């Protein structure tokens, strides 16, 4: 088996991925997470109210 330590995995990611790929995936995930968990805008907050109660991420 190859690439079998965490270190190998990170090294593999560094050599095979371009910074643009890494940044776009991380940004997409961050945007999704921010919208679902942290967005406090009253209208959005209100619309996702039931979801946040169901998922237990109520932050208000």
């Amino acid at each position: 088996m190859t690439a079998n330590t965490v270190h190998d995995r990170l090294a593999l990611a560094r050599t095979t991925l371009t910074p643009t790929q890494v940044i776009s995936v991380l940004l997409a995930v961050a945007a999704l997470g921010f919208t679902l968990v942290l967005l406090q805008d009253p209208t959005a907050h209100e619309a996702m109210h039931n979801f946040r109660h169901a998922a237990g991420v109520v932050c208000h």
Partner: protein
Amino acid sequence: MIAAYVVNGVKAGLVAGVVFGLLVALVANPLVAFAEERAQVEHEGATADGHDHGSGDLEGHDHAGGDAGGHDHASGGLPAIVSNGVSVLSGVLWGVFLGVAGFGIAFYVLEPIVPGSGSVRSYVFGGAGFLTASVAPWFVFPPAPPGVVRSLDPNTATLLYCGAVAAGAVASVAGMYAHDRLRDARGRLTAGVGAVLPWALFVAGAVAVAGVPTVPVPGGMSATLATGLAGLVVFGQALTWLVLAGAHARFHDSSGASAGPTDTGTVAGSTADDVPAGSP
């Protein structure tokens, strides 16, 4: 290939998201609306009959203004069909989010130290994900039924929430690392103890700082309803992670072939866009 991990994460996330979305649509939407109605009715009736749930109500009113109007959710500006629809969609996206962040990115990096082998790894990782993303913040903010208003302002609450998730992640990764290190040197039992020790410390620390988490009961709502709602939340998140892990176990090629450094584009079954242009 690394992309395969992200794709598997998205696929598993979609499956889990649809399940969680259904739970939101069929159970949470009507139940939250019902609880909201109760909290509202009791809220209005409370002042008249002079019950002693005053403290909760008073705290409610010095709540930061950024959220003003947000407490009227059920009867507020948006029609129920919109907030119900957005909530269901959010439930699906929640699954995708957990799938990509957990099984797409974190699992790619951590797979070598996740205890177990084959599909067991997916379930162990799912359990760690549940502890990290859901249980850890619940030590600070236990699942709250509608009508409960926190005394913290949103920014502090957000920081605390993210801090709790980060601390949970540290505990989970530390447990995996300890297990990986101890398994060969000291045997399975020691490794198992090492795996749970960081989480035990986290729990002890969280209880020492924030106290034993208790489900807040808004003024007037019956404790049974509040506890039931919290139970639904815990059940929903545990179900989401279980489905995520199960779906991931099916999608993931646990032989490790897809993570090899030598297989970029040459492994059988890899997709066309992995193959370098011009290769035979």
